[in-house]
């Protein structure tokens, strides 16, 4: 199983806090560093708090992976989910803006990609398919309107593809 980013954040946070307190006791320069470390800690706390806010859907993701692995062992038809697909989906979920509700998770039967779906009512649905590559397929229905396409997802930029956010907000009926 991959390392859990929440665990990494927690340990990073604890280490930085300890370093900041030690530095503040030594000199004014060290105190300056301590203040900066505090700022980093504040950011990390924000990220950790946000990650926790997605705890439910992240647990669903893990549950679906475990179910697919069990099905595979039992000779079922569920496809194998790659580590990259799992990791990409997890990063995608963590980077979702707080204004976007949790999507529902499923494993797709054709290639083991991970489906993240928002359903706002009859024929008001939008989904992304997160697979092994950084190119994410998406599709949605909004009444009689339909959309599909591909968006680039680069976790290093730390943002959800703008096209995806636009479509979710549009189908949800929220202002863009």
């Amino acid at each position, binding site marked *: 199983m991959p390392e859990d980013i929440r665990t990494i954040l927690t340990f990073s946070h604890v280490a930085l806090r300890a370093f900041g307190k030690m530095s503040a006791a030594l000199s004014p320069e060290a105190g300056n560093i301590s203040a900066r470390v505090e700022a980093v800690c504040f950011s990390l706390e924000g990220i950790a708090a946000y990650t926790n806010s997605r705890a439910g859907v992240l647990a669903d993701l893990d549950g679906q992976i475990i179910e697919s692995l069990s099905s595979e062992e039992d000779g079922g038809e*569920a*496809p194998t989910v790659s580590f990259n697909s799992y990791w990409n989906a997890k990063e995608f979920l963590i980077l979702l803006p707080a204004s976007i509700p949790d999507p*529902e998770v*499923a494993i797709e039967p054709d290639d083991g990609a991970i489906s993240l779906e928002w359903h706002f009512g009859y024929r008001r649905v939008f989904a992304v398919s997160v697979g092994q590559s950084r190119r994410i*397929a998406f599709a949605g229905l909004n009444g009689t309107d*339909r*959309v*599909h396409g*591909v968006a680039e997802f680069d976790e290093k930029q730390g943002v959800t593809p703008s096209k995806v956010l636009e479509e979710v907000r549009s189908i949800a009926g929220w202002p863009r």
Partner: protein
Amino acid sequence: MAALTSCFSEEIDDSEHVGRFITSSGHVAKTKGRVKYPAFLPDKVDDETSVFRLDGLDERQISEIGAKNMPNGHFYGAAVVKVGVVRRETLTVLADEPPDRHGVFRSWPLHDDAEFKKARRMEIAEAIAEEAAFLPRITKVS
């Protein structure tokens, strides 16, 4: 018109109901029993969606077909949809026996770009899923 071993007509009418047996819990929304689009995406091996023709069966008989034909008899229920809905999405629906009552959705769109192909198929599967109803598995018969 040819008859199949199941005594069904080989031609499937738009008004017929077919069911896709759900083998992944994630293919049904937890709270509402709504069918989600991945339930209708084609299988990896043959690039077609395997279904069963359900007209004339009650819920118990449908569950028996699922138990008999799904790997290890494992499934959660059936996503039921009218054939006409599937054909409106430009897919073909054909009888494909054996086993009895088996059918397939074929003609899923192709594209050189794997992600673009997936996106197009998702849109079709979403449109089908919106018109589908979930029929839970009956585990105990009185």
